[in-house]
């Protein structure tokens, strides 16, 4: 099994007053992955409000974004045999219905080189 991180991106803040249904849908999705024994780390949600960006020259700005409209709203790690299987798991995440997207990236081991499979 290899580990893949799923990075959730969104242009609206999904942690801002989610409905009961939305919460339930997200939990069901994550529970389904855990039920397949494919969850390596349930990860965390990331705040959009309590966020700063630090740049060279001691420039600190509010928010996680300045130029881009999208920001990372959370992440989790799955363990699957291939990246295709990880994509398959991500495909049913409700974030995709709200205009968000999910980036899937293989996690590299300390000695592992980076290459396309």
């Amino acid at each position, binding site marked *: 099994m290899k580990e893949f991180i799923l990075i959730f991106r969104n242009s609206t803040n999904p942690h801002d007053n989610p409905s009961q249904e939305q919460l*339930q849908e997200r*939990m*069901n999705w*994550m*529970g*389904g992955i*855990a*039920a*397949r*024994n494919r*969850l390596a780390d*349930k990860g965390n949600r990331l705040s959009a409000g309590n966020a700063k960006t630090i740049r060279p020259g001691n420039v600190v700005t509010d928010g996680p974004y300045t130029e881009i409209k999208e920001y990372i709203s959370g992440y989790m790690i799955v363990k699957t045999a291939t990246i295709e299987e990880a994509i398959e798991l991500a495909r049913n995440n409700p974030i995709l219905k709200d205009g968000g997207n999910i980036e899937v990236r293989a996690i590299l081991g300390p000695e592992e080189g980076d290459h396309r499979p």
Partner: protein
Amino acid sequence: MTSINTSDPGFLPHLFRLEYARMTAVLFRHFGLQHIEIAEDIVSETFLKAAETWNTNGVPENPSAWLYTVAKNKAKDYLKRHHLFETKIRHAVAPDETQAAQEFDFSQQTIADSQLAMIFAVCNPANSTEAQICLALQILCGFSVEEMADAFLAKTETVKKRLQRARATLREDNFRIQQPDAATIQSRLDTVLRTLYLLFNEGYYSQSGNHLIRKDLCSEAMRLALILTENPLTATTQAHALLALMCFQSSRFEARSSATGDTILFEQQDQELWNKELIARGNYYLVQACSGDTLSKYQLEAGIAWWHTVPSDPQKWEHILQLYNELILIEYSPMTALNRTFAYARVYGNRAGIEEATQLQLEGNSYYHALLGYLYAATDVPAAVAHYTRAIRLTKSAAEKKTLSGEISRLQGLQH
């Protein structure tokens, strides 16, 4: 003769088992784990004497007190004869314990303290979980090797070997049986809770057909969990949650199997047979378990078990599903995955449930096929029968085979 029904054929084995656990716990504390056999010999001899004496003279007024007196005398005799106390034990026990060692006090408090100490001695992480369970059953609950083999569907030789290894580890570990201190409790409580949890599950879900032994496993696990909740050092929210879970589960013990030993599924159970007192006690412990802010698997499982005691609430299965979602994030197990899928099907329908189930990749698991059989039953009888047939082939439980065969006949009857 006493007012308890001593003519009940189960009376003596039950009394012996209970008192075995109490007496060995007290004696172990005095002799130390290095001399486990001495304590066991004394207790065995005590029972032998009881069996002989009671056979001719009848069972005494207070059988437990009778046993304690005999055990106490035998222990004192032993020390006198072998001077063991002088040569070996005195150096092994701290000065403040020597006085107690001579007393051989079998009071309620000493028994409870000794048993608590023994629980922590037995649940030694140096041993495998299986070994800890066997050891707990033998040392804390007085089970015989045969009874354990029966409960685990294992060969007696296997159980014996497991025990020998485990006892060797304990001896080498040199663990001092005393009132466990806060640090020991801290480091071992997780292991202790886990062992008791598995001990209970062995009884509750065991595929062994021996109903009596299974019930004893459950009540022993509850007795030990109760000891944990009664001591301020071990009465954590998790310990309370575990005991609550056990109360809720065992409240259905009578309702879940028929007079002929068949399994009765949850939905077909006569709710009048649920033990209301155990449910009430479960509620009490669950409240005690909810005061902390950490959510352990025991709290979640107790929560799920609580929902099962609530007959009808439109939101019931949604709550159960959410608890299973949380539970499976904490710890994956095939059984949790399957139970979660069952709850999922109850909320979103059988078709969605089937889709969810087939993702689980548990082809070799009998419950997986039993679940799919159940989910297919209303819409696709041939598929249901095929899954039930595979479940029958995979399960070791005779009761389970019988129940599933019954379902197949019922479905095939509907077709014609």
